[in-house]
């Protein structure tokens, strides 16, 4: 189980199954907070997990995320929820060392693949690709936020929701 105290990088890495899950066709929702503890939230455009599964990079469109990116730069606190629309399987990762990192060519590939996979999953529950595209919005640019998960929670609706994620 990942530690819940924010001990950076000290806990075990995310397991392979969850690592694959969060890099698949899931909704990626990123939240931060400012110095007055007012939260902000933005829909992400994909996620990448480092080879050792200790470092997570989430992608956002900066035009829709200026406040959120400002919060990251100011305090590094982050919470990200990953949810598969067709199954409701949901997990949340939290970190306190988030920072804005350089966007790579690999990130652009991740964002394109994410849109395709996520759109496919939405179509499974009756949405149109046009609707999926509209919700996702244009992504003329990307910004990347990297963090080390210090806590992970199961959030699939039901009695187990909110419990720390077993790894």
């Amino acid at each position, binding site marked *: 189980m990942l530690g819940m105290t924010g001990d950076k990088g000290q806990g075990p890495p995310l397991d392979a199954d969850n690592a694959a899950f969060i890099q698949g066709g899931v909704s990626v929702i990123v939240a*931060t*907070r400012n110095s007055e503890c007012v939260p902000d*939230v933005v829909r992400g455009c994909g996620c990448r997990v480092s080879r050792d599964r200790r470092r997570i990079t989430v992608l956002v469109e900066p035009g829709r995320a200026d406040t959120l990116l400002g919060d990251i730069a100011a305090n590094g606190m982050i919470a990200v*929820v990953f949810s598969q629309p067709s199954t409701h399987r949901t997990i949340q990762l939290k970190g306190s060392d988030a920072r804005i990192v350089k966007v790579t060519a690999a990130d652009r590939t991740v964002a394109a693949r994410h849109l395709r996979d996520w759109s496919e999953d939405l179509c499974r529950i009756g949405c149109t690709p*046009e609707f999926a595209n509209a919700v996702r919005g244009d992504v003329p640019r990307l910004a990347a936020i990297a963090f080390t998960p210090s806590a992970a929670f199961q959030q699939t609706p039901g009695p187990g929701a909110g419990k720390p994620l077993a790894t």
Partner: protein
Amino acid sequence: MPLTLHAIRPCFEGAVPAVIATCALDGTPNVSYISEVHYVDPQHVALSFQFFSKTRQNVLENPRATVVVIHPDTGAQHKLAVRYLRTEESGPLFECMKAKLAGIASHAGMTGVFRLRGSDVYRVESITEVYGTSLAALPVRSAGAAELRCCMARLSAAPDLASLLDALLDGLAAQFGITQAMVLMGDAAGEKLYTVASRGYPQSGVGAEIRPGEGVIGTAALARTPIRISHATSEFGYGRAMREDARSRGLTAVLEQEIALPGLPESQSQIAVPILSGAHLLGVLFAESAETSRFGYDEEDALAVLASHVGAVAALLEERDEAHEEAPATAQSASPEGAPLRIRRYAENDSIFAGEDYLIKGVAGAILWKLLRNFVDERRTEHTNRELRLDPSIRLPDLSENLEARLILLQRRLEERCPALGIEKTGRGRFRFNVRRPVQLAEIPR
């Protein structure tokens, strides 16, 4: 013009899940899906509280939160800065959200998992549209002022309660394309609602009863608030459970089930709106559709306005009828000819049977018996509402009992089940009881 909550109400239908970000006092953010964000008024929304979650813990210690909702047609996203105010665990808002959540859960395959513990009310401090590439809005079915104006003009012109209810149902069909609908009236004791008018069903169901608290209709009656469901849900159905309950409650309850409540077998969307006269519940207007999400906030508004007008007009009509009741003509009728019709009355519950056919029971049953007795004993066919209201044998439960509604019920039930008998209005507060065959009366004592 700044965005208003009103302008983005389709986002609050629960078709696309919303998200909420909160923050603990130690500065740790949290983000979570939320099944139901409900439009309360132009300044407030209510979120479904289903689980004791981190979100809930956070808003109790730090009330500032951010919610993102998605327009179900265009995909447009709106970010709401909100502040938690309070939780309501009962009452109209709670009941309304509970019913809606049952529909959302059914749609999401989460029946039994989603259960409303409370309605968390938040003040909305700002609304911003998230820059995106939303689709063009679909043309919306209008449920606005022009349609309401047409309907209300017809309601205002109704000469009596029966015409008023007919005008309401015909107006819904003509102006709003709502073709499956019914009106149930409540008894003064608040113990049951009985169907007096309907449109769009193979059987009218006039006389069918339900009790407050049952299904969307009973919940709307009990909570005095519109109840709306966008996807079929067993939780708010009124099928098997009611029938089983009836068997355990004995004969009267079984008779209650004798007349089936009309209903679409493939009903997906349902709406029930209370018809109030002041604080007094007159009845419930109900509509349904095989289409999912057929009734939105606009339709709810329109039906609420119409129900409110019906409540006011009904009260005026009743007052007017009482003030102007005319003396009945004293003419006696000729004896009808033909084979006699045997009519039985069971004293236990005032239930009346013509031959082997169950006709009616309760107050309407007592009225019918009184009319039959007057006919057999005195050859009298002309009657006034006042005379019935004062008659001890009818045992109207309360002076505020809507006698006119009982007469409509009886009149329509006779038309459908016993054309040998009939009620014909002859003026304000008076009517003629037509008997077209000889009758033989038999009383079955308790």
